[in-house]
Every structure is written in C-alpha cells, then in structure tokens.
C-alpha cells in the first residue's frame, strides 16, 4: 500500500487540527470506505507504536447483537476508545468493529463528528455513495423516458383523485342539474336545435343516471320525437357504450355536468321572456315546475317498470306549464283594472252576465260588509314597453255571502265593456285552472 496516505492523514490531524473520519477521508482522497477504514487503522497503529508525543484520540464503530429492554436487537454505536472494551463485552456476538475517526482533541459529544461529515457529504452530494459499501442491485437511476412516463402518470392520476374525492359532494348537485337540463330540454326540444353541439355530452349526463328517462323522452309524440331524436339519434345506438363509459370516466362527466345545465337553463329563460313576455316571478314558477318534474324521474331511475307511468306524467307536466303560463298571462291582464292592455270583442253571454251582476249591488245594505287586504296582481307597461305584472295588496270590501260582488266596483271602472267580459272569462278559466293551484288569490271567483 502506498505510504503517502499516512502523510496526508498526519497533515490533517496535526497541522490542521482536524477530525478525520473514515467517510471524510474516503471523499477527500477518493477511495472506497473500507480502504479508508484500513488507512485510519494503519495510521493509528503506527502512531501508537512510534510513541508520538501528541496523544491521539480515536472513536470506533461497534455493531453486534445485544439484549436491550429484554429483547434481542442489532446495535450499532460509535464509542470512544476508553469505552470500547465495555461495549464489546455487552455485545454477543460482535459482528464488526472499525475505526470511525481519529483526532487530537477528545470528543465530548457526537455533534462534532456529525459536523465533520456534514460539509464533506454536502460538497459531494451527487456522488456521496460513490465509495460507499452499501449497495442495492435494484436501485438503478431511471432513464429520462421512464421519468417522463412517471410524470405523465402522476399528472393524470392527481386530477382524477381530486375529482373523485369531490365526486360524492358534487354527485347530488350534478343529478339535480341533469334533471333540470332534461326537463327544460324536453320543453323546448323543437326550438333548441343549436344544442346538438353539446348533445353528446348532455346525453352522457343523462345516461349516467337516467337510462329510463332517456327512453321516456324518446317515446314522446311525433312532433317532438324528431327534435328529440336530433339529440338522441346517435346515442340511441350507443346507449350501452355510453353507460359503460360513464361508469369509467365519472369524474370527467361530473365536471362537465356543472357547466352544461347552466347553459341549458339560459336559453329556456330567454324563450320564456320572448314568447310570453313574463316577469321573473312566472319564470320562477316554471322553474319550480321543472324542478318538480326533475325530481320525479330520480325516483324512477332505478325502476324500469315505471317508465310508462313516468312517460304519461311527463307528457302531462310538459303541457301544463304552457297552458298555465298562457292563462297566467291573460289573468294578469285581467286583474289590472286600472290599466287595460288589450281590447277584445265581447259575447252576448257575457253581456247578459254583466247585466245580471249589477242587480246584486242593490242588496248590499242589509248585509255585513267588511274590508280586507287581498293580494292582487296588476299589469302595467314598463318604460321599455314590456308588460310588467306586480303583486299588490289592496283593500277590498266584501260581504260574507257574496264574495263575487267585490269584483264589481273594480269592473265598473273599466271604460270598455269588452274587457269586463274578457276578464270574467279569463277569471273563469283562471279559477277553473288555478283552483287546484292558487286558491288564495282567485278563491273569490270560484263560486261562479
């Protein structure tokens, strides 16, 4: 063995007053750790034999089996030279002993040994294991292609995990949105041809939860079937595939669901305003109806046997709002006595009724008349030219017997008699149609 290393170690220890550990020596000289340990041992042995004046202190690393706390364990410890023999006796068998460090000063605690190796390892961080005796055949650096693959996998898996964790929270919201979009789409299927662009995604939304509901929509009358088939023409063949795809990629669809139901709602609102010139209160009524519709298919999702009944229910419900909305419009117009909106011709029957009504006015004196506040809707023309319906509380006088008479003072104010007739007709219709719904407002028209 070359003797130069001994001079190097001597220089480190005596001239620089440095702690020379085997790890620091192997990194400094570029030799294997086992060779560094041997170097230190040889140097220490030579110094002890030469009897140099300056005393050297050494630390040793001892490893072996020992009993600690009642259990057999493999212990590895760094001990000072004066405690080496004591540690050897405790271990049985002693597997390995080697010189850990040599220094001039006596080590009081292990922090100096750690500090010595810290900077040496930090400076050689990328190849600190180059001279190490610890190896693992499986620990091989990955190639750049493998690294890219792993990064891609991590990127795809991390958003799925995030979405799946939020899926349970969003599932209920997504279902409601799906139902809304379905109900609204069913109402305006004839007109919303532009929605074909998103039809595939919307179909997926529907397919996810509403396999039976899709079938119900398809079985609608021919007028709507063509429009409906525009939505479901392609996916009808791919229903099974879509359902399977839905099961696999549920996370992606949940994010899409949150967006598209909103898009579906907007055109429905705009259609309401354009067609019937209604205010938001009426749009809300329709929404409520739609929501009530949307809730019902949820119940039938899991049960395919009830699809026919749901078909019928859906058909009925889809028609109702249209008729109701139209009736609402006319009733609103009729309810505004102060501001007439449209003029229509009257009928002889209405004239007869009009004549008969004033007779009732003759006898109000003997009967009890009271005043009460009633919520009534008044229509008026806005600055923009839109018809605005407002609900206002008005005080009315009424008698216990004749509630119908209360309408007379207001009707008499109307300058055009035709309007009165129309109002009564509409009131009748409204009463008949709304008797099942809003009893509070039109209750006093029911007796007719």
């Amino acid at each position: 063995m070359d003797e130069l290393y001994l001079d190097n170690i001597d220089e480190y220890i005596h001239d620089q007053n440095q702690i020379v550990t085997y790890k620091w020596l192997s990194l400094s000289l570029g030799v294997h750790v086992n060779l560094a340990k041997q170097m230190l041992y040889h140097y220490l042995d030579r110094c002890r034999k030469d009897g140099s004046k300056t005393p050297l202190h050494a630390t040793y690393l001892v490893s072996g089996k020992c009993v600690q706390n009642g259990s057999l364990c493999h212990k590895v410890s760094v001990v000072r030279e004066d405690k080496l023999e004591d540690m050897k006796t405790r271990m049985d068998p002693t597997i390995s002993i080697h010189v850990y460090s040599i220094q001039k000063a006596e080590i009081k605690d292990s922090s100096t040994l750690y500090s010595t190796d810290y900077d040496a390892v930090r400076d050689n961080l990328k190849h600190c294991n180059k001279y190490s005796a610890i190896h693992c055949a499986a620990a091989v650096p990955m190639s750049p292609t493998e690294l890219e693959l792993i990064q891609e996998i991590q990127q795809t898996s991390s958003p799925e995990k995030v979405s799946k964790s939020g899926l349970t929270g969003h599932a209920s919201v997504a279902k409601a949105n799906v139902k809304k979009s379905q109900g609204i789409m069913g109402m305006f299927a004839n007109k919303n041809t532009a929605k074909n662009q998103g039809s595939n995604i919307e179909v997926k939304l529907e397919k996810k939860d509403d396999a039976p509901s899709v079938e119900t929509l398809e079985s609608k009358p021919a007028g709507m079937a063509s429009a409906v088939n525009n939505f479901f023409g392609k996916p009808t063949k791919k229903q099974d595939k879509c359902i399977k795809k839905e099961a696999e990629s549920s996370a992606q669809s949940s994010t899409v669901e949150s967006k598209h139901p909103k898009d579906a709602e907007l055109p429905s609102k705009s259609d309401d305003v354009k067609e019937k010139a209604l205010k938001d209160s009426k749009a809300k009524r329709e929404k409520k109806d739609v929501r009530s519709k949307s809730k019902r298919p949820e119940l039938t999702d899991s049960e395919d046997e009830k699809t026919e009944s749901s078909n019928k229910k859906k058909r009925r419900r889809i028609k109702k709002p249209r008729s109701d909305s139209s009736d609402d419009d006319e009733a609103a117009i009729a309810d505004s006595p102060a501001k007439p909106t449209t003029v229509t011709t009257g009928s002889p029957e209405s004239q007869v009724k009009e004549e008969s009504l004033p007779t009732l006015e003759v006898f109000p004196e003997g009967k009890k008349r009271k005043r009460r506040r009633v919520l009534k809707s008044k229509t008026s023309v806005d600055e923009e030219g839109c018809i605005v319906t407002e609900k206002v509380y008005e005080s009315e006088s009424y008698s216990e017997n004749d509630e119908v008479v209360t309408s007379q003072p207001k009707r008499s104010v109307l300058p055009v008699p035709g309007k009165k007739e129309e109002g009564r007709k509409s009131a009748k219709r409204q009463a008949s149609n709304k008797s099942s719904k809003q009893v509070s407002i039109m209750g006093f028209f029911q007796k007719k």
Partner: protein
Amino acid sequence: MTTLTRQDLNFGQVVADILCEFLEVAIHLILYVREVYPSGIFQKKKKYNVPVQMSCHPELNQYIQDTLHCVKPLIEKNEAEKVVIVIMDKERHPVERFVFEISQPPLLSISSETLLSHVEQLLRAVILKISVCDAVLDNNPPGCTFTVLVHTREAATRNMEKIQVIKDFPWMVADEQEVHMQGSRLIPLKTMTSDLVKMQLYVEERAQKTS
C-alpha cells in the same frame, strides 16, 4: 455582480444580526468546551444545520443576550473592532481570551443567491474549530468565570456611556488587568472571509494557567 455601498440594504443591520447570532452560539460553545460551567446545563440545539451545545440556565442566557444586545449597535455602525470572551480564574486573572476580530468591507458585492449559504458554511467551520480547540489549549483551573469585552474604534464608548441600551445593564471601561495578559501565546483557530464580513478567531492563552 452588483456592488452596493454600506448604506444600501441596511447592510450594517444585516451583518449585525448575523454576527450577534453567531456570537451567541460561539459563547455558549466556548463555555461548554472549556468547562466553565458543568456540562449538565447544556443541551443540544440546532444551528446552521448542525447540532450545537447551548445553555439552559435562564440567568446565564439572559446575561449573554443582554450583552450582545448592547454590542449590536456598535457592529451596525462598524465601530466594534473586537469582541473578546475572557476566561478568568478565581483571582480574576485572565487565563484565556477568545478574540473575534471583526471587519466589514466598505463595499458589499452581492455575487449570487448563495451568499448567505456560503456565510453559513463558513460559520459552521468556525463552530467546528471551537469544538476541537481543546487539542491546542491546556486545561483551565477549576472555578473559572468569564466576561465579554468589546474593543471599539474611536470614541464610540462615549456614546455608550451616555445612552443605556438596556436598563440596569451598564457597560464599564475594562481594567488594564483584564485587557492585557502577561506571558501569553497566540493560537490562531480560524479565519473567515466572506463578502459580508471578515472575521478572525484566535486564542490568547496564558503560559501558566495554574499559579
């Protein structure tokens, strides 16, 4: 490379903070290594990413902190030339003097983001040298005490007498006996050169410690 003057970036304050932190660690380590106080009051703490021995005794810690609190303004203005930790025997004769010579460059040249990590590395090396100074120093007699002296430039001490930095913690002009040591030998420990500060650590040891 950006070159700035001392006034920029509050340069003095940065150097003062770093140095005072370092001096606190160094004083604790000197007291531990030179066995001024029993090793039982010390416990390992982490500084500059390495374990260091710091005292747990509250009065001792408070004394060291107050001392450095008063020294900080001097370092900020670059008026402190040396900070000396004097270890004295029972007769109050100094046996060892750990001298930290401090000089700050007039122009600060910031080379890169690694400036502070480089300074940390240098300070870590100084700490390590203090840990092994046992090898070059003789043992101290029992019952030693310590004190901190600050050598200032020009007339900075006059300002210190006027302004009490900490209440009930007065600074006095040191005795000649404490400042100069007879028959001492100089043992250099470590020299540190960085862009922020230059520091030299050496020990003045009395030839005969035990009288």
